[in-house]
């Protein structure tokens, strides 16, 4: 018997039992619905995470640290007791291994690296904004020229260019905290960082010398440390974006100023010119992954943009896995539905099977007939479930985007044709497997016995 004939006969016998076919395939449709939605949500979250990362992390950037615990598993600082390391820096009681200027030079000298940007720690005791008498605290970080943010006011330099040394870029959200309504009016206003340098640990000779020349007042000044006020003018105000993380955190200064201020703050301390982390920008034709490996040979830990993506994707994949698990459970339930229906179908059609076998139909063709019926049920269920999920998802997408504040043009549910087609094919296979035993029963029927059944 030709396959097309078998498929057509299978389809016809299903049409002759419409209600039963529909109900059986609805069980599969529930599974298909769940699986399609979870596939779409997974794809949507991945695309969203992708967007999030590409608008925040330069894909040519490699994030380098000395202390593995900063990026790898385990608590920062690990267990309380650690081996002493002369290059480790204490941060609030935490001992973190830092990158020395030697390490930075090593990164810089890598032929594949275009540029290296250490993470300067500029800790201002407080910050004052023009037009406000209050004192604020905020992170102060280096402006990342590899990512261009949207601005609410002012202009940012072209991609790849640093901001001017006397400028800062502040996020729009800061203005509302300060109490400024019009972002445009704030361009050119001044922002002052009040920096306090930690006191050096003076040597005994120095103490004796200061005591001799300046008396106790001099000694007090030596112990109190040094303060410095640095003023900037606001160059641009960045807009809050749905996908940009950077815009919400900190005041951005140029690299040169960050380096200068960081040096001022740490001079004379063990942290001088040693950095918790650094970002290496890899040359255009170089592979960040290769740079990562080379740096790891030198005892540094590196992360590429891909690794960051991987981290986010791990979470997305885990959540998706859970939803898929529910879909699979629904499918398992539907498998028993198919087995049951097909067994009844075999019993109902004993005579028909007997006739077909008497007329010379091969047992395996009879089995095929029932397997194709199961496949049709799987196909129908898959199309119904996936179609419903697609339709509902497309309808609800704008609403979900609005509720979650994902930003214009970003959808949580992204339906792709190929995974859905593969899903339907997989459902057909599942149905065929479920139809195996009923089909075998049909194939083994004795035609004489079957024709005797009334």
């Amino acid at each position, binding site marked *: 018997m030709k396959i097309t004939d078998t498929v057509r006969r299978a389809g016809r016998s299903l049409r002759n039992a419409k209600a039963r076919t529909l109900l059986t395939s609805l069980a599969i449709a529930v599974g298909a619905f769940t699986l399609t939605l979870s596939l779409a949500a997974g794809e949507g979250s991945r695309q969203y995470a992708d967007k999030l990362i590409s608008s925040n992390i330069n894909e040519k950037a490699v994030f380098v640290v000395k202390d593995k615990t900063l990026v790898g598993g385990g608590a920062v600082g690990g267990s309380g007791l650690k081996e002493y390391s002369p290059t480790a820096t204490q941060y609030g009681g935490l001992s973190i291994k830092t990158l020395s200027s030697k390490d930075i030079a090593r990164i810089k000298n890598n032929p594949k690296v275009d540029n290296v940007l250490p993470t300067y720690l500029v800790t201002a005791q407080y910050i004052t904004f023009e037009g406000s008498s209050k004192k604020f605290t905020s992170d102060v970080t280096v402006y990342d020229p590899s990512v261009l943010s949207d601005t609410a006011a002012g202009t940012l330099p072209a991609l790849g260019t640093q901001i001017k040394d006397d400028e800062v870029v502040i996020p729009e959200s800061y203005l509302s905290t300060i109490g400024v309504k019009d972002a445009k009016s704030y361009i050119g206003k001044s922002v002052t960082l009040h920096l306090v340098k930690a006191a050096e640990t003076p040597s005994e000779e120095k103490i004796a010398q200061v005591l001799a020349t300046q008396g106790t007042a001099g000694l007090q000044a030596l112990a109190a440390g040094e303060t410095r006020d640095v003023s900037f003018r606001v160059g641009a105000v960045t807009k809050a974006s749905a996908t940009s993380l950077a815009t919400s955190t900190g005041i951005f200064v140029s690299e040169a100023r960050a380096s200068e201020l960081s040096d001022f703050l740490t001079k004379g301390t063990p942290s001088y010119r040693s950095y918790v982390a650094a970002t290496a920008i890899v040359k255009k034709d170089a592979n960040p992954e290769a740079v990562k490996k080379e740096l790891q040979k030198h005892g540094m830990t590196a992360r590429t943009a891909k690794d960051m993506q991987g981290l986010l994707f791990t979470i997305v994949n885990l959540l998706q896995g859970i939803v898929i698990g529910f879909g699979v459970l629904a499918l398992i339930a539907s498998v028993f539905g198919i087995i049951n229906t097909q067994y009844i179908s075999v019993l109902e059609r004993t005579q028909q099977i007997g*006739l077909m076998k008497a*007329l*010379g139909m*091969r047992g395996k063709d009879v089995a095929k007939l029932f397997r194709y019926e199961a496949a049709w049920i799987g196909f129908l269920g898959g199309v119904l479930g996936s179609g419903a999920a697609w339709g509902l998802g497309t309808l609800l997408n704008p609403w979900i985007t609005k509720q979650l504040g994902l930003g214009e043009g970003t959808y949580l549910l992204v339906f792709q044709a190929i995974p859905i087609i593969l899903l339907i094919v997989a459902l057909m296979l599942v149905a065929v497997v479920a139809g195996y035993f009923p089909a075998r029963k049909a194939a083994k029927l004795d035609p004489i016995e079957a024709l005797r059944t009334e």
Partner: protein
Amino acid sequence: MIELKQVTKTYGKKQNAFTALDNVSFTIPDGASVAILGKSGSGKSTLMHAMSGLDRPETGEVIIDGEDILKLKTKQIDKFRAHKIGFIFQSFFVQANEMVSDNVSLPLEIAGVARGARKKKIMAALESVDLLEKIGSKAKNLSGGQKQRLAVARAIVNTPQIIFADEPTGNLDSVTGAKVEDMLFGYNKKNGVTLIIVTHDPDLAAKCDMQINIKDGKVESIRDLKKAPQNSPTKTRIKVGM
């Protein structure tokens, strides 16, 4: 030519064994119409199953066209039935939910006839049983007589060499039954197809060229009505015992 040699078929085992066919031997010439007569339980249906390859007797030979079909493998037996045999049953066994054309198409599909070639054969078969105008109807909308004519069309559509009819008129009234009988005998004479009718109806049997009486699994008598129309029974029990 169909030749049976010492065919024995038993059901059950040891003490419960029941001999359905006991050393049956006879020969049927090509193109003959044969009635297998016997009471219910006499073994006539088993005989039909053995001759058509549906059943496998333990011993003996069933030689059709010089080939012992009992020696064939299942695959070859299926092929043999699909290409050389047509079946008609007492309770029709037409597929009620399917269209008349799909019912007739079944043997062609099983035999692997290409789709293009089927249409013509289906039309011809329905034409010869006078059902052409019902080609698009569902089989369940046909009357009893029409259903059996449909079964006849299904039996002849693939131009078989032998047609087995198991009580073909048993479920029909005499008028519709007569019409089906006429069609069967007409086809038998016109195309030289061997027609084997299993029946307990002596009137139907009387219309055949040959009668084989079965009793308790044994051939009681074989009458050749063609050669001896004057109703003289010729007991031809060939070879009793092994």
